[in-house]
């Protein structure tokens, strides 16, 4: 039995190291590579990954930062180039024409698409243990029955934007047992919510978005004294900024934390 396990792990690590010089032309794919693939196997990531706003994994020194242009990647001779569904399509076409291996990974805007994205990434890279762990975690959470809505929640993002039906954030709230008040008011995708509406709707949980530490008037609503009761009553949850640009990294954790928050709120009530 031990020998089989050893053989399997050897096979897994062999397939995980199939590519030695991986390049990415997409911010989210950058972050997944930096989080789950050994640094020495990454040839290039996009310049956005060097920005503090987007960096969720440490950036190796001397890594090449590309701006999505084909001529930057050719001299690096990558053996695998990952590209997203929309950005840098012209560069991807050119690199394919030059005979390089370019794999397109779909973007994810829902829980189903998230699973498809992780599966596509696994197909491209081979079975990486951290990626598989993330997949497993997500599958386990999604396999659980959707709980009845026991509490209400409302997302208040920068510039008073809220998230309604059809958004990943809404699905996470619903899966965690929250009734999303924006969706109940008929918001499809994105909508606007004023502070007055936040107060009038009285959500059990107010969900802020992003951990932006730099000053912006876009976040002025978050600082308004009228939300003090939510802060004092621990009825506040902040979605990580990564959920906006690379949900695969954090969706499982967010779902777990939201579920815990709902349980606590219900117990308090």
């Amino acid at each position: 039995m031990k020998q089989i396990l050893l053989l399997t792990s050897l096979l897994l690590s062999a397939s995980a190291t199939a590519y030695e010089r991986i390049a990415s032309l997409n911010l989210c794919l950058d972050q997944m590579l930096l989080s789950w693939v050994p640094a020495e196997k990454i040839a290039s990531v996009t310049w956005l990954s060097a920005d503090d706003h987007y960096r969720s994994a440490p950036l190796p020194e001397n890594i090449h930062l590309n701006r999505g242009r084909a001529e930057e990647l050719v001299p690096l001779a990558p053996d695998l180039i990952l590209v997203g569904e929309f950005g840098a399509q012209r560069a991807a076409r050119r690199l394919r024409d030059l005979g390089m291996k370019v794999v397109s990974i779909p973007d994810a805007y829902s829980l189903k698409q998230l699973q498809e994205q992780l599966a596509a990434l696994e197909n491209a890279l081979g079975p990486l243990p951290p990626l598989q762990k993330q997949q497993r975690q997500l599958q386990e959470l999604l396999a659980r029955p959707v709980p009845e809505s026991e509490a209400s929640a409302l997302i208040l993002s920068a510039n008073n934007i809220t998230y309604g039906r059809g958004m990943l954030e809404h699905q996470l709230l619903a899966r965690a047992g929250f009734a999303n008040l924006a969706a109940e008011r008929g918001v499809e995708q994105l909508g606007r919510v004023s502070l007055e509406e936040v107060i009038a709707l009285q959500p059990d949980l107010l969900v802020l978005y992003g951990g932006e530490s730099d000053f912006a008037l876009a976040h002025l609503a978050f600082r308004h004294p009228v939300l003090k009761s939510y802060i004092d009553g621990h009825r506040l949850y902040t979605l990580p900024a990564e959920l906006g640009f690379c949900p695969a990294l954090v969706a499982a954790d967010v779902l777990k934390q939201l579920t815990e928050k709902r349980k606590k709120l219900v117990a308090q009530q």
Partner: protein
Amino acid sequence: MSRSNRWFFFLIVFALLLALIAALASGPVSINLSSALAEGWHSENSDAVILWQLRLPRALLAIMVGAALGMGGAAMQGMLRNPLAEPALLGVSSGAALAAILLLYYGVAWQSGWLLPLLAIAGAFCSVACVWMLAGRGASASRLVLAGVAINAFLSALMALALNYAPSMFAMQEIVFWLLGSLANRGWDQLLLALPFILAGAALLFAARNYLRALSLGEATAASLGFRGRRYPLLVLAGIAAAVGAAVAVAGTIGFVGLVVPHLMRPLVRQDPGRLLWASALAGALLLLIADILVINIVGAQELRIGAVTAFLGAPFFFWLIVSARRGQSL
């Protein structure tokens, strides 16, 4: 003041009260105004919270900022003896906005307390002094406007540059706020931050009212009446900078109020620059409050910037003034 003019001012005060009630009744959520008022300040009822914590500070801030801009415009036009002098047009607001941007985006953010209005006032003072020095004493309208436009353009470019390199991802889109102003999401904290400085500015301008009156007869006459030296111009400059700088620090640059309102009020105070100060303060408050009511009721959560609305309201009056001037009446 004649009896009819006195009635007109009572009318403005009455209109201001009506506008305040309209502002308290305006918003995306329908509330029971009388019961919310009766519930009182400390109530946790959502209607009362909306009224006392959201609508009232916003309406009072509109009144306060409008008064500061109206009064600042009147003082500027009086001191420079130029009908085109206005804080936003001549770069005073841009100076304050640039100082606020540097502090907020590169410094200690919104929690900076008194530092924010103080720095904005310093910025406003520097820019108004620059315009004054650049145009020179007794400058013609064209030279003054030229100096103001130059300073304003330069400061606006610096604002764009500062926001472009600011660490916040939202900084560049927020240039719209700094150029057109907004009262959205403001609370008592911003109101209390600006209030003492606006009151101080008003007091300084009130103290300089006789100088402005004397100046309307010419610099030489003013000097012969005892208003010599730099003390009085500095008093007016400090008053304008304090009122306008503090207003810009919390509400951004709101144009047109300081330009149009003194023109509208001047005939009602018989061209008296002293009385024009408080008349413009009242009318400025009314104009900005009405503009904010329109912003709230017309566009809702996706707010049109208030500066655009003041321009919509102010421009037709200005057209009328220009047409009147062309017919031979005085501007």
